[in-house]
């Protein structure tokens, strides 16, 4: 069972990395951003290429992969997402889904359709009281906790963080003070994309790398955002870990139902707390 709990926290941590950007994008600008899958998957494929270049230096390859995604996400926000502010949710859904599909095809064109095998970059195990746990998974959970603490600090103490928190609640109110919310949204969008890429590069060694990997995890991340509350950053953290745990525990007893259970929980949450869009 301890293994299941560690696996649950790992999945939860990965979901958290990806869901943060989705939650902020929706909470602040009312854009359902399917293009988020692209930055996640691109991060992974950058890692594949850079991993071959920096053999044995996973951390360096992973950091560069995350950094490379930032200017790409800036272009996506500047050229496409920015034109969707204030548009209906249908328009944002269709446009960002189109970006995701174009991205998948571009990845297939560059890297091919066959899955890439990546291995656990640490490859060591921790034995506690007869239990053997993969250190890499523990590291992922630790990074997620550090990220949560870092983001809490960022949103509470920095002026950019405070502007984002205020804009999540009342975008017009922030604008009426003389603050160009779109400018700060660009920063938040790039930050969210970088975190999605970070989630991708951390998850890639313990999952399967293929062009559609972003689309399959994105739906789970939307469930995290809905359960945690759109734009609710603490809620996203708790929801990600809880749903990750639900997936892991369900998979232990009924592997086919792991993802289904996440959407059942989401449906129950929606019954009792409908989304106001």
């Amino acid at each position, binding site marked *: 069972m301890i293994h299941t709990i560690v696996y649950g926290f790992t999945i939860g941590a990965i979901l958290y990395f990806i869901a943060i950007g989705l939650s902020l994008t929706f909470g602040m600008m009312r854009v359902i951003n399917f293009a988020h899958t692209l930055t996640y998957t691109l991060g992974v494929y950058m890692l594949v290429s850079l991993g071959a270049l920096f053999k044995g230096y996973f951390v360096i390859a992973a950091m560069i992969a995350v950094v490379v995604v930032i200017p790409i996400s800036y272009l996506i926000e500047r050229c496409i997402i920015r034109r969707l502010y204030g548009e209906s949710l249908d328009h944002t859904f269709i446009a960002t889904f189109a970006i995701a599909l174009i991205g998948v095809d571009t990845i297939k064109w560059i890297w091919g359709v066959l899955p890439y095998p990546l291995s656990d970059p640490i490859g060591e195990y921790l034995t506690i009281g007869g239990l053997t746990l993969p250190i890499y998974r523990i590291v992922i959970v630790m990074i997620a906790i550090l990220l949560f603490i870092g983001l809490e600090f960022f949103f509470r103490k920095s002026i950019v963080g*405070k502007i984002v928190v*205020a804009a999540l*609640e*009342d975008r017009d109110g922030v*604008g*009426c*003070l003389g*603050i160009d919310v779109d400018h700060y949204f660009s920063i938040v969008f790039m930050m969210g994309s970088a975190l999605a890429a970070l989630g991708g590069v951390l998850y890639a060694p313990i999952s399967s790398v293929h062009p559609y990997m972003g689309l399959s995890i994105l739906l789970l991340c939307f469930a995290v955002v809905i359960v945690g509350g759109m734009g609710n950053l603490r809620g996203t953290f708790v929801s990600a870990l809880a749903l990750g745990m639900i997936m892991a525990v369900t998979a232990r007893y009924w592997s086919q139902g792991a993802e289904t259970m996440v959407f059942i929980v989401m449906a129950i949450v929606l019954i009792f707390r409908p989304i106001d869009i």
Partner: protein
Amino acid sequence: MLLGKGRGKLLDVKEIDVTYGRAKVLHDVSLQLNQGEVVFIVGRNGAGKTTLLKTISGLMKPSKGSIVYNGEDTRGLSSAKLAQKGVRYVAQDKKVFSHLTVRDNIELAAYAAGEEMSTAIQRTTSIYPKLNDLMDNKAGGLSGGEREILLIGRALVGNPRLFLIDEPTEGLAAIVIEDIFRILSQMKGHNVSAFIVEQNLSIVNRLADRVYIMKEGKIIREISEKPEMADTKDLESYL
């Protein structure tokens, strides 16, 4: 803490129409505001008063007509750009940034206006010293009156030129309404320019330099004589 201004036209709204989807909410609305004038807008719910303030603040765009502020046509300017040029809109909903502290709320205004935090706090607390004791409280925990005062105080940061205040006393207890009146009087004493939407005729009567009356999206009357403004029975017939 507020800058006095001389007379002269600050805002000229000419024949604007505003539509929500297919519904036209403002029809051919024209009005003016001189520097240092406090002008009230009175009318029933749904008369278009809030839409008018939102349009002047840049939150909504007119489909026809022009709005000239301080000699500049504001069409195409966002609410943020207008705020940077000294226009402050205080919305009706008393919506502060509830997850932030009172101090953080003021800090955002100071940051936007490029003003020192100490000056911003001084400006805000000058109208209501009790805010000093609430600085580290979450703004979401403030009472309705305190929220309104924080919103007005926040709007004072950066020494703006034009205030657009929507129903500042709505839903407040009588004692708090007097606090708001005192604050607005203080602002008027410093020669600020403001459009204020208000249903409380006692406030209108005591503070207004002029009154516009709105009905069904149109300005139907302008009152600039004190005796007419004091005739609350007459004004009441428009509410």
